[in-house]
């Protein structure tokens, strides 16, 4: 099939950037979206132009690197899918496809479609862990966890840190990302000891990074490639309020 691509090109953080049109011919519908971008890049390099820069790595939807805003939706038109798992068969011959980077103050553009998501790492560094050192821990089966709780914690833990939730949100809020980690650890007995301190610190860091607030539009869950539930945001809000009223900080 033949397609027209409208791709955001931006030389660097201080460049204004803009859309550039590329005509693509003979695109095989079995290709993944990123393979289609590879084909474009090969053509650009052969013409002596710079390839379109984009983050990508595992290409099986788990590393969270890829991050393209396609036709106005993070990761494109398929539900529960990262950009790398999107295949060309969902497009039609003659389509025009618009490709942009994530748009959020806390995710500044580095080049083309590559953005800086290190704010997410700093939020985790603020408290997204259980404070245990290597060694000296109890036997794994000394900490029984009800299956339902373990499964729910797992559902929260599947977050791949791609940032689609932020890109989808009109407020560029990172609530779903933070809520997923806060909930995973608050649900498990291992994480309960530090739960109040954790949520306070992670939320403070989230705010400091310049992410917006949550107004419950739920776009984040809809666009999340791992389909992480909105309920975790409610859980985090509960955690946060409890922590604020009954803080362990003495």
């Amino acid at each position, binding site marked *: 099939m033949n397609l027209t691509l409208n791709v955001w090109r931006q030389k660097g953080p201080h460049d204004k950037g803009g859309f550039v049109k590329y005509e693509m011919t003979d695109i*095989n519908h079995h290709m993944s979206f990123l393979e289609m971008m590879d084909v474009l890049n090969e053509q650009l390099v052969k013409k002596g132009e710079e390839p379109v820069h984009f983050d990508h*790595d595992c290409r099986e939807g788990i590393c*969270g690197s890829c991050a393209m805003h396609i036709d106005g939706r993070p990761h494109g038109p398929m539900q529960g899918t990262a950009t790398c798992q999107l*295949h060309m068969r969902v497009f039609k011959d003659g389509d025009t496809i618009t490709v942009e980077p994530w748009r959020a103050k806390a995710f500044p553009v580095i080049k083309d479609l590559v953005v800086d998501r290190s704010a997410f790492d700093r939020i985790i560094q603020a408290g997204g862990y259980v404070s245990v050192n290597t*060694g000296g821990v109890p036997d794994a089966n000394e900490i029984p966890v009800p299956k339902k709780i373990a499964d729910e914690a797992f559902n929260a833990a599947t977050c791949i840190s791609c940032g689609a939730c932020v890109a989808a949100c009109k407020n560029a809020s990172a609530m779903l990302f933070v809520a997923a980690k806060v909930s995973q650890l608050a649900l498990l007995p291992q994480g309960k000891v530090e739960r109040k301190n954790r949520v306070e610190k992670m939320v403070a860091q989230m705010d400091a990074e310049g992410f917006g607030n949550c107004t419950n539009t739920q776009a984040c869950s809809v666009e999340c490639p791992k389909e992480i539930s909105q309920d975790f945001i409610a859980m985090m809000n509960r955690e946060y309020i409890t922590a604020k009223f009954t803080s362990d900080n003495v």
Partner: protein
Amino acid sequence: MNLNSRIPEGPLAEKWEKHKFNVKLVNPANKRKFDIIVVGTGLAGASAAASLAELGYNVKVFTFHDSPRRAHSIAAQGGINAAKNYQNDGDSVYRLFYDTVKGGDYRSREANVYRLAQVSVNIIDQCVAQGVPFAREYGGLLDNRSFGGAQVSRTFYAKGQTGQQLLLGAYSALSRQVATGKVKLYTRTEMLDLVLVDGQARGIITRNLITGKIERHAGHAVLLCTGGYGNVFYLSTNAMASNATAAWRAHRKGALFANPCFTQIHPTCIPVSGTYQSKLTLMSESLRNDGRVWVPKSLEDAARIRKGEIKPTDLPEEARDYYLERRYPSFGNLVPRDVASRNAKYVCDEGRGVGGTGLAVYLDFADAIRRDGRNTIEARYGNLFEMYEKITGDDPYTTPMMIYPAVHYTMGGLWVDYNLMTNIPGLYALGEANFSDHGANRLGASALMQGLADGYFVIPYTLGDYIASLPFQKVDASHPAFDEAEKGVKDTINKLMSIKGKRTVDDFHRELGNIMWEYCGMARNAEGLQKAIGLIQQLRADFWKDVNVGGNVDELNMSLEKANRVADFLELGELMCRDALHREESCGGHFRDEYQTPEGEALRNDEEFTYVAAWQYTGANAEPQLHKEPLQFDNVKLTQRSYK
């Protein structure tokens, strides 16, 4: 060169305990005087960096990703083995040790593997304490499953995302140390050379991938936790950016590369669909529990299927060849990875392959669905079927899946001693980057185990033995050795940028991959390997004359990143062929056509080849020098594998 493996004396089960007592200690107040460089943030790197920082060392950790959590360990699906024996089914440290040595076709070190089995139990405890959400039983205790031909259930898992959850555990421990300031984290920073001062590893040269700045980092020890080199084949299940550059540049500086030809080819991957293909996706091996592998019996039927004239479901039973069940009646579709892979190749070579390219076989669930019902199959494999449909557009409930083998893991790597130190003092290799524990073939669910064993429970003990022998002085990054290494890195980059040829980096990489797959893939022979060596040398010469790297050096330039990596693959590929050529036997993932049993199984030559082949670099276009570390088996009897 004397390859001293430093295996401790004494009975197998006491070696590690004794060794831990005998290694030198660094007192807690002195640890802060030492700087440790960790390259890579996968399971091995993240766990090592976190654990060493907890002990008090100053750690600098480097990743070329934008976040440590994106390392390729994240993509491991199946699980992690541990000899917990929670299932009361007869597992033990000794059994895990035995299975691993046997699975590796007797080409690994007994002492290392035994230690791996010993610390496996600690890993699970550690991960659970971190909040890794492993699968659980209704009683709240941990669930296990069986995996990869083991006869016990010792695999811990978190749905099909075990690697992700374990890596996030290690990443969280690492993040905690970043917050304390004990770890300094460098993201989007790639190691491009190792610096030796007086023969000791004293630092690295890196490139900041955003600014292009070449930087030097000095330390008392360098830990390479940089993963495997499967991407030498261009197409593999590895992530796109996985590369051998850190390990290879250390090799160029004198670190020996061991058993490079030992590559694991996984039988159940989604087949290639066209030349634009960028990577291959693994489908969990567990599918072979219920799926039946077949191709058409006749060449004519296969041709008609490839042309789309008939569908696989049109073929009656008697026209199908369930070749694994036919050739291996007792193991059937559950033969080990290498056997399943090789047989798929054979039937496709005969012209009976299916799919558009003829390089695919069927994995059919029709019988399982008839027998157990669609709901049962959906409960077992629902997410895998969904993933398959997303990629191929086919519904495996109604038409057989198509699969084909793909490169998955590399057992070879930098040679290390029992302390995980390479032959260069102060240079260590952990995880897939070293060669040590899997011999000629790795068992399923053992890669995660090894990465975390090395990082959490081996290096924190063994590193001290070396560090304790060093003076406290800071390492000086203005030493001429740093100047020289930095100049070398810059020269290489400038050379790559100045060629301005006609072919893209990917073009060269693809061609190298084709050569490797054809001649150094599932089955190898002397003639093919010799041919491959010539082809690679030619390709390498062409690369340095005709590669086209666009963009600039002082900005984000992914073509340049790739060019650096492919330049190294072009040397490593040749070494792999040389290793495969010299090893005149078949063992594990290394199958030589000339050395097989009358039934077509791998035929080892224990008399001559019970050793680790460790290669020394002698120059880009010079023949490498072979060193041998003999392997001694005091506890396990060497036997011929049979799956008939």
